[in-house]
């Protein structure tokens, strides 16, 4: 059996009358990338805070690298955290930020400098190494923050929405880095709101909603839960997604629209049912401007599970 680096068992955290985490159970073996997907307030950051020993659980247990999260210091020596908001010192240069962390972890002056230089290279920050971090762009700050969390060669690393607010190019850079970490045998827990990101990076995905795990499995398993294919319908103006939703629901399909989307998606159990979708729309007099049949995406999974109110 592979060694479990992250384990949560019926983990619960309550803040006043908000249950931020509700009996969350999940595991990640060594070297895995676990993607944590959830909308705002789903409990992602709270879970990261509990696993990084910053917030004690209200009930249930959590272990990181085999150690109970209540054993703070021992765990902190094994983990790295890049939180939702970059924790860098704006007054210090990127180089000094990294050196400070290395020195705090007990490295000698020379070793600290060497490690800092290595990470600056790895993260493409060598050119800005001596500038104060407050002059960095958002993407550079994020990269520096991630670099700082890697200084101590952690075995488990927690990334809380590492690509929020990044442009597609910086996002790709970060994805490549995460891929490399996983290849090096580092266990990664990554929270995100981007389905594509979880799909690309994660070996296993846990979907949180309202503090509960509403789905978990490999990306492929989650997609399989939805059906064999997914039909996306964009109605002809002036019909909106609401009309399409009503019509398809009446016809017995599970349909949903993404927030703000003009189109409606419906997963179908077998390809033959695509025709039924079209017939139902036709019968209701809804013109279709665009119709795609795709493999189910994680978007379908996500929207299906979380059922957001369509924007009308």
């Amino acid at each position, binding site marked *: 059996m592979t060694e479990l680096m992250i384990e949560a068992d019926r983990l619960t955290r309550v803040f006043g009358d908000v249950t931020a985490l509700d009996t969350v159970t999940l595991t990640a073996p060594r070297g895995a990338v676990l993607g944590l997907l959830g909308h705002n307030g789903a409990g992602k950051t709270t879970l990261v805070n509990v696993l*990084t020993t910053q*917030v004690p659980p209200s009930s249930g247990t959590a272990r990181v690298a085999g150690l109970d999260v209540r054993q703070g210091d021992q765990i*902190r020596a094994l983990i790295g*955290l890049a939180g939702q908001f970059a924790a860098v010192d704006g007054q210090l240069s990127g180089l000094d930020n990294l050196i400070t962390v290395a020195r*705090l972890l007990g490295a000698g002056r020379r070793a600290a400098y060497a490690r800092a230089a290595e990470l600056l290279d790895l993260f493409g920050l060598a050119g800005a190494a001596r500038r104060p971090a407050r002059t960095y762009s958002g993407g550079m700050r994020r990269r520096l923050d991630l670099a700082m969390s890697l200084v101590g060669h952690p075995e488990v690393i927690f990334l809380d929405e590492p690509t929020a607010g990044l442009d597609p190019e910086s996002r790709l850079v970060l994805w490549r880095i995460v891929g490399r970490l996983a290849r090096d045998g580092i266990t990664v827990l990554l929270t995100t709101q981007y389905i594509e990101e979880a799909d690309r990076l994660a070996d296993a995905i846990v979907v949180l909603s309202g503090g509960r795990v509403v789905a978990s499995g490999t990306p492929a398993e989650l997609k399989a839960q939805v059906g064999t294919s997914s039909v996306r319908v964009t109605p002809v103006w002036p019909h909106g997604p609401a009309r399409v939703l009503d019509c398809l629901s009446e016809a017995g399909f599970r349909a949903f629209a993404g927030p703000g989307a003009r189109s409606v998606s419906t997963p179908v159990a077998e390809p033959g049912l695509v025709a039924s979708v079209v017939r139902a729309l036709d019968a209701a007099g809804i013109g279709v401007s665009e119709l795609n049949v795709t493999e189910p995406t994680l978007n379908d999974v996500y929207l299906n599970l979380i059922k957001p109110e369509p924007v009308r």
Partner: protein
Amino acid sequence: MLNLCQPVVLLLLFSQVFGAIANPELLPPGTAYVDYLLPALLVTTVMGPATNSGVGLVRDMTGGFLTRLRSMPVDPCWILLARSVSDVARVVAQLIVLVIAGVVLFGFVPAGGPLGMLAALAVAVLVAWTLTWIFLALGSWLRDVEMMQSIGVISVFPLMFASSAFVPVHAFPGWLQVVAMANPMSHAMRATRELALGWSTGHTLPAVATCVGFLALGMFCAVRGFRRPIVG
């Protein structure tokens, strides 16, 4: 640089404004107003920076580097200690500039001699250290920048003015005498005066002991407060 001169500006203002109205008969015989004032300013100078220390801690706790340190195997004692050392070091520079300016520009005569003056500075640094830890303790429990700023303003002015800093306590109305005598700052000022001006040093030891007591309390509470998780 501006920071360094700030206490000198206050010395200029206070010595001129209060010196103009100070009744020499109230002062101990043979004491010029600047001699009376300057040792007390050593103590008042350290108050503002101490409150800033607490505010700075809260700022760092809610965003910057400190959030990272919490996820690292670093004992919070060291974080607080480092902060207090660097903040107090800055104050020490201010104190030295203040004394030099006092002697050179304002005719301050430390009758206690160089050793006495150094001892008075040491007491002021101890007070700085203690106040810094008290405000670090407040910050690590309250964790609210605005509240810390209000507490700073609300506490500094009474501590500064309801004391023997500018006028001897026996010149105050009765109720204020009670307050000023209860104000620990008055006792610290008494100690710095005794040392700097070569008075008999009967009040120095109790004042230093009290200070050390507060320091221990502040350190204990600060570390306890800082170790608490971010929430709950």
